[in-house]
Structure formats: C-alpha cells, structure tokens
C-alpha cells in the first residue's frame, strides 16, 4: 500500500489536516511539539486505499530532539510527502520544502493557515510558487477543512520536480528561499489586533508574571468549580436516583453475605450502599471512575485544552525557564509537566521534545514522582478535602517542594548537559470549540477506556484476596515502614499494593479505613510519590530504557520514604 507522510515544521497544522483527511481524532494544540509519535490512518485515492501518517514536526531533516528523530526516520519509509507549509511563515517553512525536494521523494505542498494570511497582511501567489517549486501547491485550512478536497484530488499530481536542484551549502539554500519568497509574497500594512496587544502584554517583563498568576488561579478556580458542579448536579444524582434502586434490588436477589454480593455490591453500611466504602464492583468500582474522577477530568481537560489552543503554554515555558534551569531542565519542560497534571502517560511521552538525555531523565522522573495526575487529584480532593482543604494544601505543598528539591539533587547527580531554551512562540489564536471538545472527548474516553476495566478487576481481586487473608500476611511484612516510619495503620498496605496499579482505586481503599487527617495526608502523598501507576511505568521504561528506569524507581522509593517520614515527624 502507498505510504503518504504529512511532513512539515512544528505547529503548522499537520495533525489538523490528518484528522480532516482520515477522520481519526488526534491531539491538535497550538504549540510546537504536540505530536511526538506517529499515527497511521487511511485515505481513499481513487479506487485504492493509501496509508496516511501524521508525524512530529521538524525544522530540518537533521534532528535535534527525540521527536524530530521519529519524524526523520519515518521519512525514509514514505512513498509520497504532503509537505504542510505555514503560509504566514513562508521563509522558514520553504527551507524544509527545498530539503524535501532534494531527497527525491514526490511532494505536494499544502499551504496551510491560509485563512490567517489575510488578517496578517500577507498575500501569496500560489501559481507562481507552484512554478518555482515544480510541485503542486494547494491552499488549505486545517481546522475548517477548506481546501482539503482539492488537496486529495490533486494528490496524484504529487511529483519529484523535473529538475531537482541541490545546494552546496545551507547559505545557498537560504538564498534560493529568499529568492522564491521575494517573487511570490506581498506584504501589506495591517492594523494592530487585540491578540497582538495580548501577546505584547504576556511577554512583558512584569505583565507576563501578572498574567501567569491570573491564568493559574483562574484555571484552578475553573477546574474546581466545574468539577464540583458536575459531581453535585449530574454524577451523584444519577447514581442516587437511577443506580442505587437497581443495586438494592440486586442486593436482595443475591442475598447478604454471599460471595457475589460482596464482589458486586460490597458491604452494606447501615443497610445502605455507601459508594465510597461498600467496595463492590458495581458500587464503588463504577462510582469512583464515573462519578468521582470523570467530572474533574472533564473540567481539567476543558481548561487545559483552552490554554493549549490559545497558545499560552509556550509563554509560560519562557517564564519558568530560570527556575527550571536550577532543576537541570529548561523552560520547555514545563509543557510535559503540565500535561502530567492530566495524565502521566502522555506527559512522559512528551518529554521527547526535550533535547538532551539528562533533561529527559529528570523531567520524566519528576513527573512520575511529584506531578499528581487528574485522577489522583480528584480522589485527593474528594477524600482528603472532606477533612478540610488545608490538608489538601499540605499534600500539594509537599509534592511541589519534593519536585523542586529532587530536581535540584538530580541536576547535581545526573551527568550530561542542559541546553539553553530555543523555542518558537506561536501567535495567540481564538480556540475552535470543536477542536477543544474533540480533544476532551479523545482524552476522556482514553481515561475511561483504560481505567474502567482495571478498576473493576482490581476491586474483584481485592475482594478475593481479602477472602484468602493474603493481605494480613503482607501487612505484617510491611508494618515496620508503614507503622514505624509513616505512622499508618497496617491495613493501608492494601492501598499501597493497589497503588502500583491505579491511584484512584488505591485512594478508594483508604476510604473505609477511618484514617485521621494526618494519616490521610501521609498516605496520599506516599501513594502519589512511591511509584507511578503501571501504565506510566510501562511508558517510562520504554522511553528511558531498562537501566535508567531502575534508577528512576530507586529515586521514587527513597523520596517517598523520606517525605512520608518527614510528614509523620512534622505534622
């Protein structure tokens, strides 16, 4: 089957076009480095099927990060390249185009962001550009799909130009680019727009900090308010009114004290189902992912999607650069870190946008230890929040301090270098509601699809193991650390064991234990730090390699031991 690649600079709309061409949802965000893996899909070319591949963006064909390596490796396997070019940034983009043409692969150019050219006062003569490059040029708008059908119908015209020019040096190629741009592009004056004003304000020395603080507080406020609203007005009422009566009937049918009763429904508390404590597959097993966690996932990803699509994250990266250098990272590491507040799995993947091995190790380790994912945060807020938000604050404070201290230590210990920041800052864009909703759906269904089966199985297994008394044995083994160092009752060993699998189920195990506020704080912090969930661990091992992942795990265990003990001493 023919293989078609979407090749281009970062953040030019390759993934948006991919999504339009194949109907497959992929993450689309307004910052360079969104895509770090390739995604395959299919399109119809006349009668035949062809494979279309979305790859990470790259400024040149000489990679400088892991993500760019993926792009260049894929290029070797392609039969045809759709070169996606940002029409508002012709010069830099065409340099890659010329490099592609030199490779001798058939090319068609998608002149994307076509809608943006007018208000930026840019006009491009596409016919002339087509003549000069020797390959077809089609204007497109990735987010609305305008021009996409033209692109498909002209795909068969993709070709290697009649005369392939090669350039003896980079300078010579730049000279040619300058020549082409001079012939096809006309610039006209344009007025300052509100996004320009906002752009200036957020890169202003002090204005930038003020805006960052506003964004931060605004986001927290939004996530909590919307998350709580969904729980109070949608999720809990649905469970109370629709699900509880059904379960109660099932409870009667199964009869109390039977195995299936405890597996499916769990313990009745004063004759009633308590969704946080009963611990049956159909009670707590469904309630935790759907009613306790999903609402916060929705509110968090709505907020994150908005910030991503507006184009705010790279600006935050610039502000964070000085602090992050102390942790052996540079500003762009803040993007994987922020993604980690949603889910650690894509966050660890996103460390591929960092250039050096040292940085990738530190960033991925810190994410696994000290960046709680939305699932864990939802459970912390739900469970510990009942004792007072102050305690939640202590957990966040401990994690943040651990992030800083462990980063500073790793910066000293890990060999290698941290390069300086060098990033492109995209223009602010008005986010498309459709993109935000689709991205939310993509992420939410990912979490639910992964989480639901594991949680259900976990609840079942825990019930079985309880019956066999296995946890009693484990509890006595773990008692010195649990009770001695962390001051926790030995029953928490169950939560710790489950914590290897999933954090939400693990936190759920704490609910019936009647812990004090202090014990809740310590156990939540330890659960967050000592090991990532198994899904993150798999990705971590793949990205870091066997040796480094063992080092990372050692750091996690030591950190959890120390921080848990300190909390036990101080609180």
């Amino acid at each position, binding site marked *: 089957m023919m293989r078609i690649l979407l090749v281009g600079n970062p953040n030019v709309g390759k993934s948006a076009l991919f999504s339009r061409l194949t109907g497959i949802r992929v993450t689309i965000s307004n910052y360079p480095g969104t895509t770090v893996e390739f995604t395959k899909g299919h399109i119809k070319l006349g009668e035949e099927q062809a494979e279309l591949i979305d790859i990470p963006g790259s400024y*040149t064909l000489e990679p400088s990060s892991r993500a760019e390596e993926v792009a260049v490796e894929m290029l070797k396997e392609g039969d045809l390249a759709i070169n996606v070019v940002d029409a508002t940034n012709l010069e830099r983009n065409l340099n890659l185009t010329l490099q592609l043409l030199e490779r001798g692969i058939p090319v068609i150019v998608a002149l994307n962001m076509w809608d943006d050219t007018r208000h*930026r006062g840019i006009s491009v003569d596409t016919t002339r550009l087509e003549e000069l490059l020797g390959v077809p040029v089609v204007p497109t708008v990735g987010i609305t799909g305008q021009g996409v059908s033209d692109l498909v119908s002209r795909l068969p015209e993709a070709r290697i130009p009649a005369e392939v020019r090669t350039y003896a040096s980079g300078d010579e190629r730049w000279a040619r680019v300058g020549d082409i741009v001079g012939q096809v592009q006309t610039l006209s004056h344009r007025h300052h727009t509100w996004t320009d004003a906002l752009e*200036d304000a957020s890169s202003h020395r002090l204005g*930038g900090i003020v805006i960052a603080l506003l964004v931060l507080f605004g986001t927290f406020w939004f996530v909590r308010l919307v998350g709580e609203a969904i729980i109070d007005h949608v999720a809990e009422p649905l469970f109370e009114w629709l699900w509880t009566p059904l379960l109660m009937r099932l409870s009667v049918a199964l009869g109390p004290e039977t195995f299936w009763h405890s597996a499916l429904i769990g313990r009745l508390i004063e004759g009633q189902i308590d969704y946080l404590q009963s611990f049956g597959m159909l009670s707590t097993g469904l309630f935790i992912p759907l009613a306790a966690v999903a609402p916060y996932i929705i509110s968090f990803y709505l907020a994150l999607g908005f910030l991503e699509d507006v184009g705010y994250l790279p600006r935050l990266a*610039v*502000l964070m*650069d*000085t602090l992050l250098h102390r942790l052996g990272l540079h500003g762009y590491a803040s993007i994987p870190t922020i993604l980690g507040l949603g889910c650690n799995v894509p966050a660890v993947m996103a460390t591929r946008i960092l250039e050096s091995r040292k940085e990738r190790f530190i960033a991925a380790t810190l994410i696994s230890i000290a960046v709680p994912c939305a699932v864990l945060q939802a459970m912390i807020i739900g469970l510990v929040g009942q004792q007072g938000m102050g305690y939640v604050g202590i957990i966040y404070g401990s994690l943040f301090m651990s992030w800083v201290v462990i980063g500073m230590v790793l910066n000293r210990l890990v060999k290698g270098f941290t390069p300086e*920041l060098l990033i492109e*800052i995209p223009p602010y864009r008005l986010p498309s509601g459709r993109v935000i909703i689709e991205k939310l759906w993509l992420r939410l269904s990912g979490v639910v699809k992964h989480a639901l089966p594991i949680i259900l199985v976990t609840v079942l297994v825990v019930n079985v193991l309880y019956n066999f008394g296995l946890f009693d044995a484990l509890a006595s083994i773990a008692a010195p650390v649990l009770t001695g160092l962390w001051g926790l009752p030995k029953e928490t060993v169950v939560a710790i064991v489950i914590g290897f699998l999933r954090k939400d189920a693990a936190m759920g195990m704490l609910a019936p234990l009647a812990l004090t506020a202090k014990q809740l704080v310590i156990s939540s912090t330890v659960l967050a730090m000592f090991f990532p969930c198994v899904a993150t661990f798999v990705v971590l091992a793949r990205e870091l390699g066997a040796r480094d992942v063992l080092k990372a795990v050692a750091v996690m265990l030591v950190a959890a031991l120390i921080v848990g003990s300190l909390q036990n001493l101080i609180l």
Partner: protein
Amino acid sequence: MTSRSEGPMTLAEMRTGQTGTVVEILGGHGFVRRLETLGIRPGKRLTKVSSTLFHGPVTFKVDKAQVAVGFGVARGIIVQVDRYLPPGP
C-alpha cells in the same frame, strides 16, 4: 525619519522595542544551525520584544514569528541596531 547606526551589540544588551540586523552568530556549529532553522541568521532583521528577570530568556520577532532564546544564546546573537533620530525641524 533619518536613521544612523551605532556599533553592534548583543541581543541580550538590546533594549525592548529596538530593531536591528543580525550581523553574526557566535557559538558552536550545532548551535548556529539550530538558530538558522528558526530563521535566525546573519542579514535577518529582528525586533526585541522582551526580556525576563534574573537573566531569563529573551523574546524577539523575526519575520512574522516570535522566538524565545535563553540569555546565553541571546549573548551570542550580534545585532547592528537601527538608531532613529527624531525628525529635524
């Protein structure tokens, strides 16, 4: 408006809002190349947009794109700054 030039300076030393032409990029080969891929090379016009506290990154505009570089990088970008004199009477 007439314009006259003074000596070249580094991007780090430029004031916010100043515009100039890149004359030279100091640094290793890989480093020069990476800047080049972002469209920053001798002969290009750039405008400094901002700097951050504590010798943090410097943001500037090249063509229509905004780029941010660490302070150390900014010290390696040598710029001939335009100097505008107020129009005479």
